[in-house]
């Protein structure tokens, strides 16, 4: 099934796995093509990504900007460090809220698996405290930060 797992590993890692009913090439493209990223990497209902820069090449820039109908917004920046089409992406990212969060180093693997793809995303934070703080406030992978922004502004 497509059940997602999310767990911590050691002191500084977070690992997310998810199965997709599509070949690795398609899942890889959906993670690197800005036009595709804009369709799904949105987090909670009501948010859109009006700006999506994803230069899928060595050292290429990443910039995702989210906003909602209330005019609230935040953004993420990052860089691609390694790209192995269509099996592996390594990038670094940070949220801007507006102060930047510590760098999150992310390795995403796409392995062919029972007619589809098993995605394994392994995040590495600078230290245990940063990871705990990130999980505690749900800042992982950017999305959850929107909740925090939303709630603190209400």
């Amino acid at each position, binding site marked *: 099934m497509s059940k997602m797992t999310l767990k911590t590993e050691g002191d500084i890692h977070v690992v997310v796995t998810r199965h997709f009913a599509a070949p690795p090439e398609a899942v890889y493209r959906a993670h690197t093509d800005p036009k595709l990223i804009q369709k799904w990497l*949105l987090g909670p209902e009501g948010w859109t990504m009006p700006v999506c820069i994803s230069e899928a090449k060595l050292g290429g820039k990443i910039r995702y900007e989210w906003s909602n109908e209330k005019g609230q917004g935040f953004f993420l920046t990052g860089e691609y460090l390694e790209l192995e089409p269509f099996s592996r992406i390594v990038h670094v990212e940070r949220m801007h809220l507006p102060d930047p969060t510590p760098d999150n180093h992310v390795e995403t693997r796409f392995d062919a698996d029972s007619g589809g793809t098993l995605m394994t995303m392994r995040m590495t934070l600078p230290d245990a405290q940063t990871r705990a703080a990130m999980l505690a406030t749900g800042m992982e*992978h950017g999305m959850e930060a929107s909740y925090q922004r939303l709630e603190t502004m209400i």
Partner: protein
Amino acid sequence: MNERHTLDAAFAALADPTRRAILARLAKGEATVNELTEPFEMTQPAISQHLKVLEDAGLVIRRVEGTRRPRRLAKNGIDAMDQWLARLRKALEKNYDRLDNVLAAMEAPRKENFNE
């Protein structure tokens, strides 16, 4: 404090990175102000001020032990962290459910070609 008010105070308290880091430290076990000040490049009064916000929000409680006043996570603090984790999980699941649809749409044209 009613529930809504408590929640607002908790969210406001969590909005600050130092306070999140303090909570993360306390998640590992109780600690005094001195022990909490050590890893941060901040003065003790500054840390005490953050602790006061966390205590007022019901996220952290203190006990008295002689001259020491060790702080620990309150049940609300633990619940708040659990809630954030659950929401994070939900947001990620929502993303990947949307990605399922994106992938299905990418596949669709090819299938049509096969059929025709």
